[in-house]
């Protein structure tokens, strides 16, 4: 039997059935109960759940995540049961050949698509339990997205692209403009505020996208092949920028990629193949290997 504490008088209340007011002081308990219900909902389906340990260590967890696309009569499995724990503040790369399910996994973690089976938790909240409003909230405030094709809104300037998520988050105009300028300054585009995407180079567009992904200070930045459409040098710059955000800002970065330059900066690398996790490499185990790889593949600048 769960017990809750009245936020008003501190009395301990048994939550058998539905309690809406505190028997001691008649304070409204609906908020507390709703929170409790949500916590119960999120823990459902877990094997073992120890609040004190797991609550904040893993920012994203997937359990038995599966996705099957139906193409006409044929069922194509894109993910076949992925168990993945992403630590708070780490730089995780998801590597694999094209068609291995990288983007599908990216979509599931980002709440952009619904899994056929299994569950995905963001900060211990089961995404399947969220309504449209909560999902939008999550996408707006908790997750920043970076795409291979940049996906800027073509009719908006760099500044407007960056401030759009802030409009959705209900930020005031002045604050929004200041923050948008700061973010664009940070990615080195302080002098390109009023340029439209088509007036910017690929690297610059991706920088705008990075700035936009940080608009509402997300806890997670999801990057789907962020360097896929960029040349080596520009790709390197974007990777450095992401690494800096990760190191200095503590943002968890999850990046789907098959760019070897990414190995250099990743804390862990998840290799997926045919919709399954093949192996997970820790950076510590990779140091030596990267020493040789890096000198071959990453050009000096």
């Amino acid at each position, binding site marked *: 039997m769960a017990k809750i504490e009245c936020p008003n008088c501190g009395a301990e209340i048994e939550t058998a059935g539905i309690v809406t007011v505190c028997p001691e002081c008649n304070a409204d308990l609906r908020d507390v109960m709703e929170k409790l219900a949500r916590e119960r909902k999120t823990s459902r389906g877990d094997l073992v759940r120890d609040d004190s340990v797991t609550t904040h260590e893993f920012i994203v967890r997937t359990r038995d995540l599966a996705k099957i696309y139906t193409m006409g009569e044929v069922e194509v499995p894109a993910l076949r049961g992925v168990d993945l724990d992403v630590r708070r503040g780490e730089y995780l790369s998801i590597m694999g050949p094209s068609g291995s399910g990288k983007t599908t996994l990216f979509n599931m973690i980002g709440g952009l698509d619904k899994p056929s089976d299994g569950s995905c938790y963001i900060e211990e909240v089961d995404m399947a339990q969220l309504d449209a409003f909560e999902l939008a909230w999550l996408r707006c405030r908790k997750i920043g997205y970076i795409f291979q094709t940049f996906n800027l809104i073509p009719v908006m300037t760099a500044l407007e692209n960056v401030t759009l998520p802030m409009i*959705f988050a209900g930020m005031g105009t002045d604050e929004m403009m200041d923050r948008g300028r700061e973010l664009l300054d940070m990615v080195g585009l302080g002098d390109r505020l009023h340029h439209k995407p088509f007036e910017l180079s690929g690297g610059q567009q991706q920088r705008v996208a990075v700035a936009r992904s940080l608009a509402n200070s997300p806890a997670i930045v999801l990057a789907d092949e962020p360097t896929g459409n960029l040349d080596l040098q520009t790709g390197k710059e974007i990777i450095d920028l992401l690494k800096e955000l990760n190191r200095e800002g503590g943002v968890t970065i999850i990046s789907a990629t098959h760019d070897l330059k990414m190995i250099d900066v990743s804390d862990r690398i998840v290799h997926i193949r045919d919709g399954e996790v093949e192996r997970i490499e820790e950076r510590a185990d990779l140091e030596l290997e990267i020493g040789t790889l890096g000198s071959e593949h990453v050009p000096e600048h």
Partner: protein
Amino acid sequence: MIDIKRLAKMGGGGAAEELHIQRQIVLPWSEAFRISIRNVTLRLGRAVITAAGVILGIAFFSSVCTSKVIQDGLAASEALQIQALAAATGGTSEELGSGSAAADIQERKAQQARQLWLVIMSLLVCGVGITNSMLMSVTERFQEIGTMKCLGALDVFIVRLFLIEAATIGVLGSVVGLILGHLAMLLIFSLKEGFSTAAKMDWSVMLIYLAIGLAIGTVISLVAAVPPAMRAARMRPAVALQSEI
């Protein structure tokens, strides 16, 4: 380098708690208007094509209504003249106007029935045309819609943006169409019947017809825009993002 730590600070606290405390996602109407109007002005080519459908349909409607009002005005003034003539010569107006006037009225009624039919048909065709171009303009922006949803847009925001766009195109297109159709008919009748035609028109009736035309044009473009916009808004972002044009 600016303080990244401050800019990209982590959201503290449990998600469940925060979800509860600050569940707010907004798109103020003022911002929605700004974005939609920008969309119309920056994609002028697309907007003009959509508007052309409205303009043509409503111009036809307007010209038919104008010609009806003008003909009514001419008939009324003719009747007055005949009455005046009858009073002057001492006969009755029936004797003077007699057969030809009755036949005129008959013919005009038949003609107006045909015109009403034509107006209905043209509005239907114009409705289909607008639906088609609205469908196109939504489809070619699937990716943009997916991106917006990734940034936290609710379905209603997307529908709202497209509705404002459609209403703008509908209103502007209708106004242009009404003016064009009206002026064209006025010019034709002025050349045919003399320049006093405009004075013989019943302007209050004309204004009512113009208002009806404006309403029809706006409603048609709104109705054409809603289904594709709703369909686009309801798509899962992953699907919208992957769609190729």
